[in-house]
C-alpha cells in the first residue's frame, strides 16, 4: 500500500454517519474514496457545495460545477449550493464536523504550517486559515518526511496557519494526537515499529505503554 493510500484509508476511519466534512486538495481528497458502505457523509467544497460527488466521466462535466481547486466534480442527490459567505459561515460557525487538510509542518504542540514557504512559495492561504481555526475537528493528512527531513517538528519554522492546535495527524507511519498539548503516538502503520516512527520524527513524542496498529 502506498503512503497516500495508508493515510487516506486511516483518516476514513474517522468518518461518522451524517458528518459534514471538508477535504482539502491532494491526499485529503482521496479520503472520499474510502467512505464505509452505507454511511452518508456530506462533503463540502468551500466554493459553495455540500454533497460533492465523484469526478464526472469524460465529457460529462458542467462548467459551473467544480471543487475548490476548480476541477470538475458531480453533485450527489441531496446536494445543496450556496454563496461564499454561507460557505465560510458553515466553516467558522461550528457547523463543519471535520476538515482534512494537507500540511508542510506540524509541531509537537499541534501547530500547523501549510500555506507558504517564505521566498519560495506564496500561493495565498485560500480557505486554509478559516478551516484550521473554525472546523470542530482538524485532521492533517501529511507524509511524515520530505527530502529526508521530518515534517513533524519541535517548532514550526514556517508561518503558522492557525494558533489553534490540530486534533489529529495521520502520516504513512503513524497516527499522532495532542492530548494536553503534547504530541502523542496513538498508532503505527502496519509493519512499522515505534522505533521507526521515533527515528523519523524530529518532535518529542509521548509514547504510551501500548501503541495500537492502524486498523486499515
Amino acid at each position: 500500500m502506498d503512503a497516500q493510500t495508508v493515510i487516506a484509508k486511516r483518516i476514513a476511519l474517522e468518518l461518522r454517519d451524517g458528518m459534514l466534512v471538508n477535504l482539502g486538495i491532494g491526499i485529503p481528497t482521496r479520503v472520499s474514496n474510502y467512505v464505509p458502505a452505507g454511511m452518508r457523509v456530506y462533503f463540502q467544497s468551500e466554493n459553495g457545495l455540500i454533497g460533492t460527488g465523484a469526478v464526472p466521466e469524460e465529457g460529462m462535466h458542467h462548467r459551473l460545477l467544480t471543487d475548490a481547486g476548480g476541477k470538475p466534480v458531480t453533485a450527489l442527490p441531496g446536494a445543496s449550493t450556496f454563496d461564499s459567505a454561507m460557505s465560510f459561515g458553515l466553516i467558522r460557525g461550528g457547523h463543519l464536523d471535520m476538515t482534512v487538510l494537507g500540511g508542510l509542518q506540524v509541531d509537537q504542540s499541534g501547530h500547523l504550517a501549510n500555506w507558504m514557504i517564505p521566498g519560495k512559495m506564496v500561493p495565498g492561504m485560500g480557505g486554509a486559515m478559516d478551516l484550521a481555526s473554525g472546523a470542530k475537528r482538524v485532521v492533517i493528512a501529511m507524509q511524515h518526511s520530505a527530502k529526508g527531513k521530518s515534517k513533524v517538528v519541535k517548532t514550526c519554522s514556517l508561518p503558522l496557519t492557525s494558533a489553534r492546535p490540530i486534533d489529529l495527524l495521520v502520516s504513512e507511519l503513524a497516527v499522532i494526537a495532542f492530548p494536553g498539548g503534547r504530541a502523542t503516538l496513538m498508532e503505527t502503520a502496519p509493519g512499522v515499529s515505534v522505533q521507526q516512527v521515533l527515528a523519523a520524527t524530529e518532535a518529542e513524542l509521548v509514547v504510551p505503554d501500548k501503541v495500537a496498529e492502524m486498523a486499515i
Partner: protein
Amino acid sequence: MRTLSLADAVALIPDGASLMIGGFMAVGTPESLVDELVRQGKRDLTVIANDTALPGVGIGKLVRARLVKKAIVSHIGLNPETQAQMIAGEMEVDLVPQGTLIERIRAGGFGLGGILTATGVGTVVEEGKQKVTIAGKEYLVEPALRADFALVHAFLADYLGNLAYALTGRNFNPVIAMAADTVIAATENVVPVGLISPDHVITPAPLVDYLIAQS
C-alpha cells in the same frame, strides 16, 4: 436597471477603478466583461476577488494584460503570472483568508464597519491589526470592503434584473452585488419577468444597475 451593450457598460468604468469580480478559479466569472475590460485597455485597476484564476483565464486575462495595479484576493497559487508581477513589484497583492475576505465584502454591502473573526489570530495575518477579546476569545478587527463596481455573473436574469445563479457559479457573486456603488451583471440567460420564482431570486432587481445579456 438599464440594459446596455457590453462596450457601453464597460465604458462606464474609468482607469484606476476598484472592481469586485465574481468567480472562483474563473467559475462564475463574467468573462464577457473581463474580455471587454482588456479590449478597452482599462488601466491601474484594483481587483477584489477570490483569486486571480489561471494564466489567461478569467481574472488571469486582466493580469496577463497588466491592467491590475492591486489585487485583494485569497489565493494566487495557480497563476504564476500574478506571482511574477508581485515579486517584480509591478502589482501589489493583499492576501486575505477567504472567509475573512468574503465577510469583509458582506459587511461592506450590509452597512457594517467591519467584522470580528478568530481566523488569523496568532499568525502573520494579525500583524498591524486591532484585536478585541469577547467572552474570553480573541478576534481580529477586519474592516469592511466596498468597490466602485461589482462585475457579477448570473445564470438567469429577468428583464427587471432579478438574478439567479447556478451550482458553484454563485460563490462571490450575490455578495459583491451588495457591496459596490455600481453593479453590472452579465447573465447567461434572460427570461420574462415572473419566470424566476420569488423564492428563487437570489439578487433582487433593485440591486442591479446594468444588465448585459452576454456572460
